[in-house]
C-alpha cells in the first residue's frame, strides 16, 4: 500500500519530468553526463540519492524492483531503499534478478545476463572519470568536449610504471561508442565487460554531483587499456566457498583471528540459486 501522503514514487511530477528529460538526453548521447537539478532525498548523500531519483522517475506501478548493494540483497542500503519504494510507490519487490524489471545497484552488476525490458540503475558517487586528475569542472568539461583523454592514459601508464600492471581495480574507466570516457561507477573491473552490448537499459544517477548518464542497450563499451597491457577482468582466484562457482565475483570474508578466510559470491541471488540447484562449495555446511 502506498503511503498516501506522498506522490507516487515520492518525487513530485515536475521533478520527475525534469529527470525524465535528462534521461532521454543521456540515452541520446551515450556516456555524456547530463546535469540535472538533483533534489534532497530522505537519505544522506552517498546512500544512493542519485540512483533513487532515477528509479523514482522510471518506476511504474506494475514494476517489480530489486535493489542490491555490492551484489547483496540483504544489506542495510539495499533493504532500506527497497522498503522506501515499497512504501512510496507500492511496487512489488524481489531479490530474484530474473524476475525484476527495475534493478537499482550499488557497485555491482548482477552475474546473470540481463534481458530486454529490464532497467539497471546505478548509484554513482563521482560521475566524472577525470575528477581525480583534474579537479576543475570547467577543465574536465572542456576535455570531454575536445575528446582530450590523454590524461587518463597517463594515469593508467603511471599505474604500470609503479606497479607493473594497471592497478585500478574498480571504477575502471571505459570509452562509450568510441566517444565519451565514462566512469562505470565503482563496480569491480570484473563487471566492466557486462556493460557492453547489454540487452537492458543502463542508467546512472549521481545525486550529490547532480549528473545523470545512460547506456542504451547494445552500446559498445570498451575498457581503456594498452596494446601491451590489455584490460583483464580480474577476480580472486578461488571458487565460491558456498556454491562452488568459478566464474562469479567473490567477496573475501575473514572467519577468525588466525587468518582463516573464505571466498563467497558477492551476488547473493546468484549464489542462492546455485545452491538451490544443488551446487556445493568446499565451505558449505
Amino acid at each position: 500500500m502506498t503511503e498516501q501522503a506522498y506522490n507516487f514514487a515520492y518525487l513530485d511530477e515536475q521533478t520527475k519530468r525534469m529527470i525524465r528529460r535528462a534521461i532521454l538526453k543521456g540515452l541520446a548521447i551515450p556516456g555524456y553526463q547530463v546535469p540535472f537539478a538533483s533534489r534532497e532525498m530522505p537519505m544522506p548523500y552517498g546512500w544512493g540519492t542519485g540512483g533513487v531519483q532515477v528509479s523514482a522517475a522510471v518506476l511504474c506501478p506494475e514494476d517489480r524492483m530489486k535493489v542490491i548493494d555490492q551484489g547483496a540483497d540483504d544489506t542495510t542500503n539495499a533493504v532500506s531503499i527497497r522498503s522506501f519504494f515499497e512504501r512510496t510507490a507500492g511496487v512489488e519487490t524481489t531479490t530474484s534478478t530474473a524476475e525484476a524489471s527495475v534493478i537499482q545497484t550499488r557497485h555491482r552488476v548482477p552475474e546473470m545476463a540481463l534481458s530486454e525490458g529490464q532497467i539497471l540503475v546505478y548509484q554513482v558517487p563521482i560521475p566524472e572519470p577525470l575528477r581525480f586528475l583534474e579537479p576543475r569542472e570547467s577543465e574536465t568539461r572542456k576535455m570531454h568536449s575536445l575528446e582530450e583523454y590523454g590524461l587518463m592514459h597517463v594515469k593508467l601508464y603511471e599505474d604500470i610504471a609503479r606497479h607493473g600492471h594497471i592497478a585500478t581495480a574498480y571504477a575502471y574507466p571505459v570509452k562509450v561508442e568510441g566517444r565519451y570516457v565514462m566512469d562505470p561507477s565503482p563496480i569491480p573491473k570484473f563487471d566492466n565487460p557486462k556493460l557492453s552490448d547489454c540487452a537492458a537499459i543502463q542508467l546512472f544517477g549521481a545525486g550529490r554531483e547532480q549528473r545523470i548518464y545512460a547506456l542504451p542497450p547494445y552500446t559498445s563499451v570498451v575498457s581503456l587499456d594498452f596494446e601491451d597491457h590489455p584490460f583483464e577482468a580480474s577476480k580472486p582466484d578461488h571458487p565460491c566457498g558456498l556454491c562452488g562457482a568459478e566464474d562469479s565475483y567473490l567477496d573475501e570474508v575473514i572467519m577468525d583471528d588466525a587468518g582463516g578466510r573464505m571466498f563467497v559470491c558477492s551476488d547473493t541471488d546468484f549464489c542462492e540459486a546455485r545452491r538451490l540447484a544443488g551446487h556445493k562449495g568446499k565451505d558449505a555446511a
Partner: protein
Amino acid sequence: MNTQVLDGGFADPAPQAARAFRAVMEAMARPGTIHCLSGATPPAPLSVAAAVAILTLCDTDTPVYLAGDMDTPDVRAWIAFHTGAPFSGPATCAFALGRWDDLAPLSAYPIGSADYPDRSATLIVAVDALENSSQNLQGPGIQNTARLSLPEIPAFQANHAHFPCGLDFLFTCDDRIAGLPRSTEVS
C-alpha cells in the same frame, strides 16, 4: 472560453505519466521500435501519441514551438492549460511539434554546444505512417540493424554528423511513437 481545452489530460497523472515515459524511453533507447501511448484526448490536429508525450515531458521549464498547421488556438490553449509550457520560436525551443515539412529547416533549432550537447531541441514529428520499413538504422540501442519509415534520409545523416551535438526526434502517428536519437546512423 472554449471549455474543451480543460478536458483530455491525464486522469491519474502520476501512474499514467510513468507508463508513458517508459514507452518514450524505450522508444528513444531502442531506435526503430514502435510503442503505443494512451491516456489523452487532445484537440485536432494533435495526435494521441504527441499529446501524451507532451503531457509527460513538457512543463513551465520547456518552451514549445508549434510549427505550421499545429499552431492552432485550440492546440495552444490545450498545451498551455495542461502543461503550462511557454510557446517560443524554433531557435529557443526545447520541444518542437509539427509535420516534417513544416518543421524544416532543421538548422533553426538548438543542437547544443560541444560543452553541453544536451541543451538541444527534441522534435516531435507528426507522420502519416509509422512502420518498421524503408530506412536502415544502426547505432546504440540497436542490436544489428533496425528499420523505420522516415520522411527522408539526408537530414538525419547531417544531424548524426553533428554528434555529440544534434537534434533528437520522436515520430508520432495516431497512438504510436518511435524515437530517433542523434546517435543513430540512417541509411
